[in-house]
């Protein structure tokens, strides 16, 4: 009984971590490959998602899921003028100013969080307390929720990209196909949509994570690192690769700590990435440069 | 000098170049022609190491180039120009040639860093050399102009001059005449002729049929990555396969 419980916990933790990593990395890769922005503020968007959910849920008293959705939508929408004002003028040109601007925004967002919410740690409690049993193992609702919502978002994203005209246009543009422009796909609109999606993904990830762990203004840095690691591992410019990379890293971080230690988890993840870089620098499913 | 045997390059499932065999002998002027997408630039990329061949060998003066890096191949004496204009946009014309002349390994890194007098002398040699090349290509007047501000035709000539500064034994020219008007074409052909007369072996890709046929002594024709004909310009002009290849492409004549 205890054994299968432990196994279930481990798998669940792995899936949960993977879900969050995938959400963050997908958002980052969308923005990177479709808007050309080096979105170093992506971690801060994630952090804002967490704080936004906290605000609507804890401060305003809304239901957690409602708070999550509202926060995600708002932040996703906020990303659109952000892209338009701060990054679009630099698109295609020297990318350096846009990197600096992203960092500037990153700094300002972090400061906003600190100023508005204080630098102490915050807690978000969800109404999904409690546990249920699956196949004789005890699993927590919250973790299941994270996995479920992530799956919905990821699935929705893939549908959007593969089935809608806008989505296909975005894919075409991200692969630099010249024909994309000829087919009347507007790079501007693609940028806006990609930014909206990218920020939404980060925000929902933050909102979900905030329920499991605590919030702090510096939580964004961690998310950015993980997002980058997933992209490096899974493949630059490949969405399926990101999912794969997220699963791998998520499971490493879910499985290894209880069995060995958090240190070993980090180390193993690190070794995987180094190996990938040496033998296949473009990532598992990335396209060779 | 250059022996290509069984050269093949696959991109995914598609073969851009397939079992290509041909030779370029010393001091020859060979033309490589073919319809768009025939694999001519790919062949250049393979020869110069910018692409790794899937199969086959490329022998240059006895050495197989297939696994070599482009800079090593360049040091062996094969220098190329690029189809898209390739210059150093931020350099002036003179600076471009000086930079290119540093292929000469005679100045040690530390020598130059410490500006010793021996290095200063060699730097003077390089400067002289650069001036010489400028004179050779008739661009002396423009030596202080910014490369990016040159008119198109002169940019292409600069590209050739940069290649010359690397002391090529075999010069690969990728559509040197593209985008030029007739007087520029004439003067560029003149220049290429001069280079050839100096003893440099030339392999030329060109869409301008008249120019290619007029200048090259031997032509190799590619289509769909394979050699479909080889011979003198006259032979090629009358070769049925060649005519087919050019006319049979889509609905429009070449």
């Amino acid at each position: 009984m205890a054994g299968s419980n432990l196994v279930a916990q481990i798998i669940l933790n792995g899936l949960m971590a993977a879900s969050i990593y995938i959400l963050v990395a997908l958002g980052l890769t969308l923005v990177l490959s479709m808007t050309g922005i080096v979105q170093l503020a992506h971690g801060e968007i994630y952090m804002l998602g967490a704080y936004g959910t906290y605000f609507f849920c804890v401060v305003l008293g809304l239901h957690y899921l409602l708070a999550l959705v509202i926060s995600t939508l708002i932040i996703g929408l906020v990303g659109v003028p952000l892209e338009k004002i701060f990054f679009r003028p630099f698109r295609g040109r020297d990318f350096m100013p846009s990197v600096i601007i992203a960092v500037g925004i990153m700094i300002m967002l972090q400061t906003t969080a600190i100023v508005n919410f204080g630098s102490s740690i915050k807690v978000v409690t969800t109404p999904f307390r409690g546990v249920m049993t699956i196949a004789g193992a005890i699993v927590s609702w919250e973790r299941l929720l994270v996995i479920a919502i992530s799956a919905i978002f990821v699935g929705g994203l893939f549908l959007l990209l593969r089935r809608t005209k806008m989505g296909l246009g975005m894919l075409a543009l991200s692969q630099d196909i010249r024909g994309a422009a000829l087919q009347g796909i507007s790079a501007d609109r693609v940028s806006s949509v990609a930014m909206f999606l990218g920020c939404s993904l980060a925000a929902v990830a933050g909102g979900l994570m905030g329920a499991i762990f605590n919030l702090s203004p510096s939580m964004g840095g961690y998310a950015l690192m993980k997002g980058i690691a997933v992209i490096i591992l899974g493949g630059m410019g490949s969405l399926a690769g990101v999912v794969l990379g997220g699963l791998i890293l998520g499971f490493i971080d879910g499985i290894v700590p209880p069995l060995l230690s958090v240190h070993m988890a980090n180390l193993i993840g690190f070794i995987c990435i180094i190996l990938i870089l040496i033998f296949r620098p473009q990532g598992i499913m990335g396209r060779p440069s | 000098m250059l022996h290509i045997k069984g050269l093949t390059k696959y991109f995914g499932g598609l073969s851009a170049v397939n079992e290509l065999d041909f030779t370029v002998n010393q001091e020859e002027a060979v033309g490589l022609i073919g319809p768009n997408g025939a694999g001519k630039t790919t062949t250049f990329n393979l020869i110069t190491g910018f692409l790794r061949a899937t199969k086959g060998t490329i022998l240059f003066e006895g050495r197989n180039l297939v696994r070599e890096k482009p800079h090593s191949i360049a040091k062996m004496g094969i220098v190329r120009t690029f189809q898209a204009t390739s210059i150093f946009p931020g350099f002036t014309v003179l600076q471009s040639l000086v930079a290119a002349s540093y292929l000469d390994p005679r100045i040690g890194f530390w020598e130059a860093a410490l500006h010793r007098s021996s290095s200063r002398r060699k730097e003077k040699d390089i400067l002289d050399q650069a001036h010489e090349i400028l004179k050779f290509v008739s661009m002396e007047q423009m030596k202080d102009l910014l490369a990016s501000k040159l008119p198109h035709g002169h940019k292409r000539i600069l590209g050739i001059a940069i290649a010359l500064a690397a002391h090529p034994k075999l010069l690969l020219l990728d559509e040197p005449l593209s985008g030029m008007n007739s007087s520029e074409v004439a003067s560029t052909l003149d220049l290429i002729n001069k280079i050839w007369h100096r003893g440099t072996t030339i392999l030329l890709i060109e869409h301008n049929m008249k120019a290619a046929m007029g200048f090259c002594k031997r032509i190799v024709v590619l289509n769909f990555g394979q050699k479909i004909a080889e011979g003198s310009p006259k032979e090629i002009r009358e070769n049925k396969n060649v005519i087919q290849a050019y006319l049979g492409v889509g609905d429009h004549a070449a």
Partner: protein
Amino acid sequence: MDRREITIPLNCALILFLFLIPLFVTGAYQLHVLVMTGIAVVLTSSLRLIFNSGQLSLGQGGMMTLGAYTSALLVTKLGLSTWIALGASAAAGALLGLLVGYPFMRLKGIYFSLVTVFMAEVIRLIAEQWRSVTGGTLGISNIPAPDAIAIPGLFNISFGSKVSFYYLTLILVLLSLLALYALERSRIGLTWFSVRESDFLSESIGIDTASSKVLGFCIGSFFAGLAGGLYSQYNSVITPSGFGFIYSMYVLIYMIVGGGQSFLGPILGAVILTFLPEVARPLKAYQPYIFGGVVILVMFLLPGGLVSLPQRIMTLFKGR
């Protein structure tokens, strides 16, 4: 050489001024700011070198951490002389650059930058996790100041005071800048510029672009490591997160906001942007807004950086 006749005396005057600063700046905190500015100048200028050699490293903070820990460990655990430790910290940076340089160079543009971020993060993780050696999150403390330089009968320079550290930093900064400038003007500098202008053209005429970039990365990392070693001996305490991602970002900001094109740019950027938060200190929590705001504003108005300000003013006056 008209310009030379102006700039050389100007530089000498500036250097003289820098040496005389401790005569009228005596506050410990002010001297601290100056030392940190000096370190920032070295880091930013070395980042510029890497950038000029063709790739952008966002891991200078990581190299600095590496240098700091190398120096600290050599002194506290092995009892080596601080000067040797300082040299070792620089060498450590260069060595790591060499080790990861070739595999990293295969990545293009922004992916290279991402990987350097990751490398810095790995350095931080190792510093944090390898408790037995590095003391974990608490870091290493009680790192001694540099050993005294003594020639019996002539002089004895000890480094206990902030003023002495200021001079040490100043000298190291000046030497570093000299070296960086010389490199930029040398043949290898020309090679770097060619590679940056067009790396496949450079490759086609025989320049080993990969090695050229790796060399740039190594040298830049050398100076970052040196800065780290200096810091460890200055601050006597180092922690794994002292110079993480955020700091690498700051160094990048200093360089770009100062102006990436000229040698002066990074120096200007480092100085002004280190002083700015100090000046805005009264604003307390809102200070980062000023910093972020200035940075963004400069990027919009002066994409070429602060260095390009004189040119911009001139074009405005000429009425285009």
